[in-house]
């Protein structure tokens, strides 16, 4: 137990901050994923064959390739790609992107692919009559989407989005390979210097269990809130 003391003696404070880092990366990745989902869901539902195939390619490739491989792509390729773009604008110095951004971006792209599928499924299972009725009643585009379609879509999407959140939260453990100090990386450092990997990795497992448990409680409440009236 001494190993968990806060301060210089134990690893309590380090692990606490590492947990905050895991939460921060997960939330950032989830938001980046929503942005990707907002871009690709319309493509997947579009009638244009070309746009449709772009949307399908995104979800198929990302969901069919291991997360670790995607992370390596961005970890090793990220700064190269940015330096290439910068060199077009005449900037030739070395640019290093920080591990937090690379990590949340790569996990975000992965979680975006899952979110896209969730939103597509939710939009498709809204009753067709709802779209037609909203159009017939002459609502403008803003009300049509934000007041009629979106609330119905969220009700259907939230249970599946909480699954996506769980996947994203667990995927962040993989960013430890890039050196970002989140729970896994901190446990690796701690077990390296104390030679007690069993304790620290088990404690990491407990931290992840706590995170998944607490977030499930919150998301269940959200689910109840959005399914009001049904």
């Amino acid at each position, binding site marked *: 137990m001494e190993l968990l003391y806060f301060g210089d003696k134990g690893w309590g404070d380090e692990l606490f901050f590492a947990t905050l880092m895991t939460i921060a990366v997960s939330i950032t990745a989830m938001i980046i994923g929503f942005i990707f989902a907002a871009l690709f869901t319309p493509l997947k539902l579009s009638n244009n064959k070309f746009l449709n195939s772009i949307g399908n390619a995104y979800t*198929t*490739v990302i*969901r*069919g*390739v*291991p*997360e*670790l*491989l995607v992370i*390596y*792509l961005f*970890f*090793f*390729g990220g700064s*190269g790609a940015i330096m290439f773009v910068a060199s077009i604008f005449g900037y030739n110095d070395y640019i290093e992107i920080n591990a937090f951004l690379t990590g949340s971006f790569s996990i975000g792209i992965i979680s975006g692919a899952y979110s896209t599928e969730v939103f597509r499924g939710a939009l498709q299972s809204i009753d067709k009559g709802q779209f037609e009725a909203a159009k017939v009643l002459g609502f403008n585009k803003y009300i049509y989407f934000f007041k009629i379609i979106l609330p119905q879509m969220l009700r259907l999407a939230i249970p599946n989005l909480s699954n996506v959140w*769980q996947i994203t939260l*667990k*995927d962040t*453990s*993989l960013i*430890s*390979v890039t050196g970002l100090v989140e729970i*896994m990386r901190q*446990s*690796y450092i701690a*077990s390296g210097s104390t*030679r*007690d*990997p*069993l304790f620290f*990795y*088990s404690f*990491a*497992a407990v931290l*992840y*269990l706590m995170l*998944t*448990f607490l977030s499930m409680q919150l998301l269940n409440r959200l689910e109840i809130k959005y399914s009001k009236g049904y």
Partner: protein
Amino acid sequence: MDIELMISSFPKLLNATLITLKLLSVSLILGLFIGLGFAILRMNNNKLINKFAYGYSYIFRGTPLLVQIFIIYFGLGQIEYLRTTFLWVVLKEPYWCAIIAFSLNTGAYTSEILRSAFQTIKPGYLEAGRSLGIPSKIIFTKIQIPIAIKQSLPAYGNEIILMLKGTSLASTVTLMDLTGVAKYIISTTFKPVEVFIVAGGIYLFMTFIIHNVIKYLEKKYGFQT
């Protein structure tokens, strides 16, 4: 785009695919047995056994696979007692540690899939079987199992693909599977995009095949219930 590198790395990556496939198939088979065992425990009426099986699947589904591998590979070696038993022969090999972690992990997911498949069988089928005087063993093998296979196929297909992606974590415990070799080539040549295309292509090809096999099986077991 370095086409030459893509061509020269292809055989190396293909070779590493064999290890990925070996890891996948062994852990899926072991996981199926573990999953079936825990699914049966979950349907037990004894509360304690039930809670134990639920706890197992909750812990393995609630923590990242990476933590599980690290606990087994780095953690268990720390226990002095284990080093003296025959288990050490298994646990000192990263290959077997990865297999143990993968089997336990996929076992947890499989147990949930099978449990829900068995529970959604309408009681009417079992009652019909019993009233026709069919022995309960045959009810299990000829009625419950085919319906459960049909119900669980789509979810189990997803689990196989998730597990295929999961085997990439074996590279973190020094195994040179497809992702491990891909990382090695990337870090020596610094050409991530080319290697990603080749390795990702191999993974996608495997996903494609698994997807189609499951589709075929779904058709085969696609009787109306």
